[in-house]
């Protein structure tokens, strides 16, 4: 059974067969003192995940319930246990939707600058899993394929749902991809389906920059202390409630987004100049829609991908449908 998992700094996303799809904040919370808790939204009991000697909550439950939270921030993410815990949490989410899934082939991604860590990710993720939540779940992850994260977006445009090459422009062309993630923005170039590493790279800036600035402004101006995911959610909803009053966030978000635009465009210019040799620039990632206009000003041939939040996970899933992917 093929699954794709995109473990981002902000959100972890997963796609499987028969419409299986999930996402949750990439947050792990300690659960040493709590046997179970109640999902405040759905009103059902949520059990911590037990795997080897770990016991943790993940996603929204970790944000809501755990005193000690961790997320993946630093460059050593592959060596960070949080990264592996998020992978285990993804397996739990899949088991909720597909209780019969036992033997898995997984396609996942790494940021461009960490792609050299690929062998370690494969070693870490492949193997047998025995996970306990409200029940015991057993998996065998038979094979793991790792691609640079932004290539997921490219694969979604290139491949059909069955994994066949169907987009002639991407197949033959020189394509740039800008993937605006939570903490990093990745840039890759594919030249007739050859990865051009010289023109690829990362910038240590992403949607988190906007969230952090807005969060700080809310604390300074309104003494409103919110967590990172809470601010992120408020930005999506365009407003936040302060002492019972709805406050539009536009005046706070606009300058923060402008700073992000400036940083991303500067890095793109470093790598690609005016981008004249590129046939098209694809803009992806959860932050993509917010800065697309600035990218298009520099690269008029830029194209914003639909449903950018899911683009990498969907592309990885399509790549997983190719017989050759798990033969390597």
């Amino acid at each position: 059974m093929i699954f794709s998992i995109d473990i981002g700094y902000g959100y972890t996303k997963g796609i499987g067969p028969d419409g299986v799809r999930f996402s949750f904040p990439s947050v792990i919370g300690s659960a040493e003192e709590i046997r179970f808790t109640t999902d405040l939204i759905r009103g059902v009991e949520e059990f911590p995940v037990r795997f080897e000697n770990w016991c943790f909550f993940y996603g929204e439950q970790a944000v809501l319930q755990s005193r000690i939270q961790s997320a993946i921030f630093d460059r050593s993410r592959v060596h960070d246990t949080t990264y592996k815990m998020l992978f285990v949490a993804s397996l739990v989410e899949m088991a909720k939707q597909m209780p019969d899934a036992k033997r898995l082939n997984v396609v996942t991604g790494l940021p461009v600058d960490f792609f050299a860590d690929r062998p370690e990710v494969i070693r870490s993720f492949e193997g047998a899993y025995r996970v306990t939540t409200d029940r015991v779940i057993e998996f065998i992850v038979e094979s793991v394929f790792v691609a640079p994260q932004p290539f997921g977006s490219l694969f979604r445009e290139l491949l059909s749902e069955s994994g066949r090459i169907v987009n002639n422009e991407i197949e033959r062309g020189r394509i740039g991809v800008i993937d605006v993630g939570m903490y990093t923005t990745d840039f890759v170039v594919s030249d007739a389906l050859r990865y051009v590493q010289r023109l690829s790279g990362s910038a240590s800036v992403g949607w988190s920059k906007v969230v952090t600035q807005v969060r700080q402004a809310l604390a300074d101006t309104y003494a409103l202390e919110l967590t990172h995911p809470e601010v992120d959610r408020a930005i999506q909803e365009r407003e936040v409630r302060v002492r019972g009053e709805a406050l539009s966030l536009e005046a706070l978000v606009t300058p923060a987004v402008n700073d992000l635009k400036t940083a991303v465009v500067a890095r793109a210019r470093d790598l690609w100049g005016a981008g004249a040799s590129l046939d098209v620039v694809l803009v992806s990632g959860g932050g993509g829609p917010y800065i697309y206009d600035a990218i298009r000003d520099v690269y008029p041939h830029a194209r914003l991908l639909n449903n950018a939040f899911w683009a990498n996970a969907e592309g990885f899933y399509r790549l997983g449908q190719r017989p050759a992917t798990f033969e390597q």
Partner: protein
Amino acid sequence: MGHIVHLDFDPHRAEHRRVAAWLAAQTDPAEAVVRLIYAAIEGQRRLMQWEEMATLLANDLRQVRTRISSRVASSSTSSTSSSLQPEEPAEDPESARRLDAMFASPEDVRGG
């Protein structure tokens, strides 16, 4: 000159007793009987109209069913024949090879 009709109801039959009681209760029994007869005739006429309309509708329904079933049969035939043909074009072997080898050995990947 008016018509006088003598009605001989059978006191041993319940229906006769009920009708006799109803007729005796009318202030104008002749007018009541006329209205009853008129309603019966009108009812008969309307019933015949509805039966005629029902027959026409049944015929129309039969024709529509025949048309739909013939179209469903033809469309299922065409979809069966199209499903036998691959909708996606064949991949260029060189492109497929490049894609499948894109990250085969990351150490060898170089810019170009």
